[in-house]
């Protein structure tokens, strides 16, 4: 028999998490603008609310009320589906990212908390969490390709082409750079990976420095951030696959972009920085602090480096990152076999 109380609790937990993620994504846009402004010795948005704090709200309202414009020759269904696919694929992986320790066992409102990860600081403790994340984020490429194709316009097509090539190339390197971590912790569950890093010197950024570096590079290429932001390389491609989208459809792409950034930061935290593990402070503080630091790092990088050339990007992916990731796996496996 289905326990409806548990279903309700799961739904509430999911909604709370989704709300938190959406709010954080909205405020990441403000944070990015502020960080970039400070790096460029400017002040950044400060007109809407104190310190510009209501700016994301104003932006959201503006996006909602913008006029819907679409191309006449667009493939209507695919055109509308693309932003949805991209957004869903950007938000879904958060379900398996552990954000806190949580209480295991016990009862809440008469519902036992040992089922469906209810008592844990994660929405779904899947024992193949890493696989799940890579599967879902790979599906996101479909959204990009469909957006480019269905727009019936040349810049989106070129942008989607590039985006697909880039994402597929770096997916491989991204996956391989995590394998070292998986070898060390011996599990595909993100909860397990975090529990494995229970001392600071056991954080994977110290045990897997090369893997950490490769994951950072391949990760920022995978989510198409500067210096790898070829999909919307404005001086060549206008805005890449998003060119023909307006209003909230564009807003969804924008949301997905920052969703990807947040996801990457949480993944770096989970895989390499010990997730919610840390002394003294409560787990959720450690987790959000690390994620915040990673977000800042990616914005800092964006404020520093110019965009790479496209062929160099491909060269970097296939000739440097990929072999280095394989090398990292081999060394890790060797050391593990020799020691244990």
């Amino acid at each position: 028999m289905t326990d409806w109380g548990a279903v309700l609790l799961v739904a509430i937990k999911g909604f709370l998490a989704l709300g938190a993620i959406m709010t954080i994504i909205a405020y990441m846009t403000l944070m990015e603008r502020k960080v970039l402004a400070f790096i460029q010795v400017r002040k950044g948005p400060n007109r809407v609310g104190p310190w510009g704090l209501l700016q994301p709200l104003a932006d959201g309202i503006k996006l909602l009320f913008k006029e819907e414009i679409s191309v006449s020759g667009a493939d209507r269904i695919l055109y509308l589906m693309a932003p949805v696919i991209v957004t869903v694929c950007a938000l879904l992986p958060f379900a398996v990212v552990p954000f806190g320790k949580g209480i295991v066992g016990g009862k809440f409102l008469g519902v036992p908390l040992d089922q469906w990860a209810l008592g844990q600081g994660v929405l779904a403790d899947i024992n193949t969490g890493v696989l799940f994340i890579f599967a879902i984020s790979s599906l996101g490429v479909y959204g990009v390709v469909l957006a480019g194709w269905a727009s019936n316009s040349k810049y989106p097509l070129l942008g989607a082409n590039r985006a697909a090539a880039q994402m597929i190339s770096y997916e491989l390197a991204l996956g391989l750079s995590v394998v070292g971590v998986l070898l060390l912790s011996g599990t595909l569950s993100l909860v397990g990976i975090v529990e494995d890093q229970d001392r600071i010197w056991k954080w994977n950024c110290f045990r897997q420095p090369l893997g950490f570096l490769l994951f950072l590079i391949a990760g920022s290429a995978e989510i198409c951030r500067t210096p790898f932001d070829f999909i919307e390389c404005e001086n060549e491609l206008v805005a890449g696959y998003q060119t023909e989208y307006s209003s909230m459809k564009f807003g969804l792409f924008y949301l997905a972009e920052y969703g990807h950034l947040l996801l990457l930061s949480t993944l770096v935290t989970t895989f390499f920085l010990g997730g919610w593990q840390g002394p003294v402070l409560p787990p959720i503080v450690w987790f959000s602090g690390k994620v915040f630091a990673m977000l800042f790092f990616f914005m800092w990088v964006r404020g520093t480096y110019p965009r790479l050339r496209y062929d160099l990007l491909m060269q970097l992916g296939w000739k440097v990152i990929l072999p280095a990731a394989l090398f990292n796996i081999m060394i890790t496996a060797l050391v593990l076999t020799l020691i244990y």
Partner: protein
Amino acid sequence: MGERAARRHQERMSMIGPLIKGLALTIRYLFAPPVTEEYPEERWEPFPRYRGRHQLLRHEDGRIKCVACMLCATVCPARCIRIEGAVNEQGEQYPATYEIDLGRCIFCGFCVEACPKEAILMTTHYELAALDRRSMILDKEALLRPPAEEEQGERTRVPGSLVRISKRGPRWMGMKREKQAGTAA
């Protein structure tokens, strides 16, 4: 590894240092104070020799210094000065009309240099935006009025906002600002 490949490899490896240097540079600028001046609230006070809106001068007894010799109108490369001369009861020439079209003026200051009577000068008043071209043409009365402090930005001021006149001057010029009183004396 061939010689060329080795050199290329070395070049790539030598990029790692500069990449870190770049990050260090941007983090330094992150903590630098912003150079932004929030314009309607903060104002830049121009240098004393800044060439802004013109002003016609009077003698101490109130007569206009200008004798309508047309030198300024002649030298003006933008042809923005229009003068109609007249003769008063004492037999002195004076400008009956004196108009400068600020929409055409290029603020070169030739009129000031050409003037034999030092009757025209350029003030540091720089808030010259107008809503139509007609009101950019300043007549004699407007030119005779010295730009008052409160006139600065009367069109652009946000109602009720505090006006702070910035004393810093533009930082991008990299110059030490001279005291206005010191140079005027």
